[in-house]
């Protein structure tokens, strides 16, 4: 099979004929590639009924060599509303600081710093939330980016059932499993600790 590759700056077609996807931009009413890669056109649903109302989406995709490469991306950045996995690095009464290492199921090249402020921990009874009973340093948390934040931190939120702690170790260091939405139990000692637990799938 012959695959033609494109380079940045290469025109792919008139802007009216396609919907721009990823890896392309529009210049002079032309769709132009912005990446080196393969051109992928995906016909849109209504296009099958011979209507010209929904043109196909055109994107440029950079192929990857290995599955490991596919699951990670060094050019990936967190964006508003992307789901991330992060490790809690330090906590205080106002916020928990976390290192983001997975964005939208892909491993990032460099870890990004994010914060979960106390008002973003859960959806209801916000004023009763305490950071110390929600997270501990070392917890792995699923969270959503709510803002690009300031110069150093992305602002994260766990205010949803499926967001919160997904992996944690007890004070004695052994792993814990969730027993309800706000408690986790140690596998070995049976000790119960408080966390903002994510709903298991």
């Amino acid at each position, binding site marked *: *099979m012959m*695959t033609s*590759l494109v*380079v*940045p*700056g*290469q*025109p792919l077609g008139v802007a009216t004929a396609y919907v721009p996807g990823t*890896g392309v*931009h529009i*210049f002079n009413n032309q769709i*132009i590639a*912005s*990446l*080196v*890669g*393969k051109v992928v056109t995906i016909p849109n649903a209504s296009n099958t009924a011979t209507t010209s109302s929904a043109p196909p989406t055109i994107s440029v995709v*950079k*192929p*990857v*060599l290995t599955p490991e490469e596919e699951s990670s*991306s*060094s*050019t990936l*950045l967190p964006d508003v509303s992307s789901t991330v996995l992060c490790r809690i690095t330090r906590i205080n009464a106002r916020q928990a600081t976390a290192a983001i290492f997975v964005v939208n199921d892909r491993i990032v*090249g*460099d*870890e*990004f*710093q994010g914060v979960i402020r106390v008002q973003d921990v859960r959806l209801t009874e916000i004023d009763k939330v305490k950071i110390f009973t929600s997270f501990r340093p070392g917890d792995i948390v699923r969270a959503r980016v709510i803002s*690009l934040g*300031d*110069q*150093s931190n*992305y602002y994260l939120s766990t205010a949803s059932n499926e967001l919160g702690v997904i992996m944690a170790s007890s004070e004695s260091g052994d792993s814990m499993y969730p027993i309800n939405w706000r408690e986790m139990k140690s596998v070995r000692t049976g000790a119960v600790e408080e966390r903002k637990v994510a709903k298991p799938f």
Partner: protein
Amino acid sequence: MAAKAPDRRRNNPPSHGTNPPVFLSTSLPSSTIKPEQASRPPNEIRKIFLRTGLVSSVTGSSFLEIAPLKLSVSVLGPRPLPRTSTTPFAAQAILTTEVKFAPFASTVRRGYLRDSSERDLGSRLYQSLVGAIRRELYPKSRIEVVVTILDSEDEGDEVNTVYMEEGKAAFEPTFRDAGRAERALGVVLAGCITAASAALADAGIEMYDLVSGGVSTVLVDQFDGKGKGKEGDSEKRLYVRDPAIAPPEGKKPLATCVLGYMAARDEISELWILGKLGTKNGTAEMEELVDEAIAAARSSRGVLNEAAKERVQFIVDKAQSTTQTDDTEMTG
């Protein structure tokens, strides 16, 4: 900047440098000692070797060779801004470029610390690339382009040579020709631009267009003695693309133009003209010189396109061959 403290942290070589071996010209086949310029028409650039993806620990990388020039480019990022960064919120990626000559890259040994010509090349490289990158896609992050020049025709920044550092000029600087050092740096800069574009493409950083570098020089016939007064229509201008540092026999370089050029958009992102052009019809000459540099940049763009595709094509071929073997295993 002239009197700089010597670098005491590293184990430095002899300050007077070392002598390269000198071979008898008769021991070489006559073809190898032919002047390089003569073997190539003035409108043809030298052959370029350009390959991407050589450094696995960085996001993107490339290696470029044009005759004696050898350089490697690493692209890091987009990575988060350092915690101590003084920049407030950055809606667009911050690009940093760094050009460093290896200590052995010039004919005169260079120091480990960045000198003025390296900083100058770095800022020119920044200028040529910054407009081509879609920086708005990478907020709150920085993209670093690091160029290491391994070999060049550059003869070193006189101000920063070891001789000057120690305050004792060991030899009289011999007059070679005006703008010789700048011409060497121009060729280096054009190589940096082309190679950096390839590395950015390899990194998968989105760009509006690839930027390729081009150099051209305008030469005149050299007159014996005082030929200056005769400057006029009688002088024939020779425009050379991608010039070698040594001017051809009997020619005197007037000016050199280096530019970063986006061929698909027909945009010049960086323009550097040095030297003197005739006062009579300087504008026309200037335009001719720039056009020649653009033509040189177009030529290197062809190489750049192929180099950018090469590694991706390899991945595509590899993926296809593995799926084919998987299929045969299933049927067999």
